[in-house]
């Protein structure tokens, strides 16, 4: 494991997703960093919450060959068990992943340096240039990796690549501040306007998010506040009114409404997580929400058609 120092900084990355077309303009590659300061009940990327390498087990692909059990030094694998892994015993060595012939066990989280990331991200440079796209830094909470981002973002900008950061803002502004000059655009998630509700749904503090947003709006010219529409969680009239009031106080005049889907629930069975399926369904009255927000002087756009 390299010690820290210039160029030695690493971060855990769960996925480098090429051809992302809903995370900013043009054709983009989105880097999902691992680790988050919030615990949203509706989190769409549960594998990005923990800051440690995790194992994902896809039971459907298991051939029951026992190669993983044979490779596991601490004896954490019992292939007769449904999920098969005793995660308390697992020391995260990754030998089982290497041994598994079918890819049923995979490890979530790759430790990467900025240089390695730049290398991988440049693979789609031609598409960024042809479509006005670029790189989106997402997560988890990417700002937790601010040291690495301080190497990565300038390096990408030096290559002429458009850099967008997606953040939930739940950290002291000082962590984000030095990074701002190296970002073209920020997508700032704002989910709830009521501190108590925010605390119960995300185990976080709304005042921290508001403080970061207030400073960020002053310090960066292109901050786009986005509200993910979470059916039944932040779509009711009173909840929307609370969001509208907060945003007005912060001086936010425009927001983007994001559609939400429950595809993440299929990931849960492969992870060791306390997150529970929500089974949300039903339609969201986007027009009503837009009207409610407009009453608070906040103009909402809803441009993404993808479900």
């Amino acid at each position: 494991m390299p010690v820290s120092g210039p160029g030695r900084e690493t971060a855990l990355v769960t996925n480098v997703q090429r051809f992302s077309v809903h995370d900013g303009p043009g054709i983009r590659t989105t880097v999902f960093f691992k680790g988050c300061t919030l615990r949203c009940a509706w989190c769409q990327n549960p594998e990005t919450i923990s800051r440690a390498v995790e194992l994902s087990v896809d039971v459907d692909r298991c051939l029951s060959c026992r190669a993983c059990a044979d490779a596991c030094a601490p004896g954490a694998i019992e292939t007769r068990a449904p999920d098969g892994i005793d995660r308390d015993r697992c020391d995260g060595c990754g030998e089982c992943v290497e041994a598994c012939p079918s890819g049923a066990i995979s490890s979530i989280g790759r430790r990467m340096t900025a240089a390695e990331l730049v290398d991988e991200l440049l693979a789609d440079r031609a598409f960024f240039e042809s479509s006005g796209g670029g790189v989106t830094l997402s997560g988890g909470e990417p700002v937790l990796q601010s040291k690495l981002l301080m190497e990565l973002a300038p390096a990408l900008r030096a290559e002429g690549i458009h850099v967008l950061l997606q953040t939930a803002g739940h950290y002291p502004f000082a962590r984000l501040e030095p990074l701002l000059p190296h970002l073209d655009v920020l997508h700032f998630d704002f989910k709830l306007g009521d501190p108590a509700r925010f605390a119960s749904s995300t185990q976080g503090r709304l005042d921290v998010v508001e403080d970061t947003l207030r400073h960020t709006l002053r310090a960066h010219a292109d901050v786009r506040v986005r509200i993910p529409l979470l059916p039944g969680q932040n779509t009711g009239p009173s909840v929307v009114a609370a969001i509208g009031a907060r945003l007005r106080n912060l001086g936010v005049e425009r927001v983007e409404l994001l559609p939400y889907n429950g595809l993440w629930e299929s990931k849960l069975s492969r992870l060791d997580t306390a997150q529970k399926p929500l089974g949300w369904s039903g339609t969201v009255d986007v027009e009503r929400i837009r009207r409610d927000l407009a009453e608070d002087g906040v103009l909402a756009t809803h441009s993404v058609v993808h479900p």
Partner: protein
Amino acid sequence: MSGPAMTPVRSTERITPSPTLVPSARLGRLRAAVLAAPYGICTTKAERLTEFLAARWGSGLTRALGHLHGRAFAAGLADQAAGRPLARWKSRLATAIVSASRSHELPNAEAIEQDLAEGLAHVLRNAPLRLYPDELIVGNASSRRVGAPLHPDYGGLLLAGELDTISTRPQNPLHLDESQRRALHERIVPFWARRSVLSTWSVYSDDPSLADELIDGRALVLTQIAGISHLTPDYPSVVRLGLRGLLAQIEARREAIDAASATHPSAAQRRQRSFLVAASTSLDAVVEHAHRWVAHLRDRARLEPTRADELLEAAAVLDRVPEHPARTLREGLQAVWLVHATIHAESFQHGVSFGRMDQYLFPLLEADFAAGRLDRAGAVELIGCFLVKAAELLPLFFDRATEYFSGLSSASGITLGGVAEYGRDASNELSLLFLEAYDQVRLRQPNLHVRLHPRTDPALKALAHRVISGGGGMPALFNDDAIRPALEASGLSVEEAADYAIVGCAEWGAPYRSFPAAGAIFLNLPALFLRALRDGRDEEGRTVGPRTGSAASFRDLDAILRAFVEQLRHLLRRAVRGNDAIELAHAEHRPTPLLSALVRGCVDKGRDVTRGGAQINTVGVQCVGLADLVDSLAALEHAVFAVDNAACTIEELIEALDRDFEGHEILRARLRSKSPRHGAGDASVDALTARVTRCIVDEVSRFRPARGGRCVAGLWCMTTHQGFGARTGALPSGRHAGAPLANGAAPAAGSRVEGPTGALASCAAVTGVPNGLVVNQSLAPSMVRAASGQRTLLGLVDGYFAMGGMQLQIDVLDPAVLRAARERPEAHRDLVVRISGYSAYFCDLTPAMQDEIITRAESAAGCR
């Protein structure tokens, strides 16, 4: 005879995007009529040509023998169709009969040309003239609304064993009347059983097991038994000079020969002269046919007073063209269509293409606009009428060939856009109008191809996005900056390469002046790779290739690649010589004087196109299963040749392949999940792909066809990836025996790819290919129809082309719609999907091909 190197483009200003046109009601009705028409077989040529030649060729005795031979021939074909190889003594006997009868039954070569030209005239003089409601462009490529001419002189007799079932076969049934069936059984099959290309080509082949190899259908398909095709006739000269102009050139050439050989013409001069006479006869026959139409339209105008004006105008147009130069867009389109239709009374309907129509017809559109005769909507309606005519034509495949060429496309290509002189953008108003017309018609053919380059007018790209978003995979997109250098490297001049047009599906080359035989040969790359693994033996242990060493002796990838190339070279030699034999049969038995009058070079040389008359000659060799080959090599590298951590020995691997991985599931899983693949954007595999491509292109280009010119490699497959795949054993990539091979240059089905950009970045490694390639990319409708869809789609195209990608076709598919179409085909008759380099109605596809399209759609839907 030679025309300008490139049709000049006069428009220098940028195209102004114009508002979307109101759909034409006429085109809507024409579209519905073509979609509703049943498919049928046209035997006009078969019956008329046979009756004409039977009166000239052969004696009473041979006619009697003909019936016996015809019956034996049909029985042999039924065996072959079932995949049973013909007994060696039977094929020897057949060859002996054909050889013996050839010498005393056929006239000499000069007389054959003239007989066939007069035979064509007889066909065109007696062909029924079918006029359909609403059409403004008239002329029939067959006697049916949607029909397939049967060519008994080529490979049409392959249907001899299926005549009683073809109207009821499950896949693509084609209607055949009882009277047609009787004519075929009683007169046509017996006459051609000893005279067709199908029955004579083996006389010219010195490879006795080649026929078995072809019946086996595992490693090699030779298509030109079905007829010569896959070329772009000199339609610009038809439009600019008229057939009279071409006839004058032939006459001048004949006078020059006469002047030079007044006293003692040499044998060569006599041959040239007789060719020119036959070419004249053929063009005269087309002019005469046009005038039959004039009289017919005037008669019909009297009978149909409500449509009289329209019909009289059509008569006036045909009174002028194709005999004389076209002056209006309508005359230009009508001239091209009528000549195209008559070509198919002579030649097989596969890949006979239209060239750069937006270039050579543009002066006519300009003249119409300047004179105020036509507006954009009127032009779109005329072009739409032309496109509908092209969709009336079907190819004719016997049952087994349907597996290799599913979808019933006769694959006529129209090329739009591209560059003009000095690399200027050539796209113009007419390029847009062709796309607008296609957008309204949306039938399975013709194939629309758009050439792109960095200076292409944004309006054309925006419209291309709109048309592609509607689904169906058209237009296909071609990258000038990658294709022009590949063509120059294959021997074309800078001007010829800049003027390239697409023949058929994706075969780039010089139009109007070449006989590219672009679809002549298909080879199965993974089958050759398996032969290399098994020391020249096939999956059943028969020795079919050279001994290239036992697998145990291979220490690295280079060794196995060397063995593969040796196997490839061996099969290429057989394939090219086999194709030579077929072409020789064409040259000796079935020259094509009409087509030859319409390909530049033939008149100058005084030589038929089948005998090397074209200015440029090539033979296209399609190599199928590139991704399977690359993936298998990569799997060997990782699983067998890896220094540490090898999964198995090469012997264990071959053992697993022999058992189709039965009992070796874990090894198979490892091969599939652990080794990188084509399409995953892995730099080392992309380098391997580039190396293998280079190696194939170079190897093919070493071969020289007997007709002259060179062999050129292509990486497109129609549906041979299904036909070959069904006959190919398990592969080291983990692909099971019998599964389809990868389509064109695209990643193998089911490969985990890094999204469309990763897949296309890998495909950009496949470059420098001289005879075309196909890369299919499916996208979900929501992705391209969103507000940002144009940016996404064009960004994908432009990025891939900037990386050096040669060709791309984007099919916008909704898996739910496809599944619904399979459940209720009658409600989705008009659902057009992309197959390989062509499109087809989904409901016309084999079930296996439907599965493949649904899988593609599902993986596109999963790519969010």
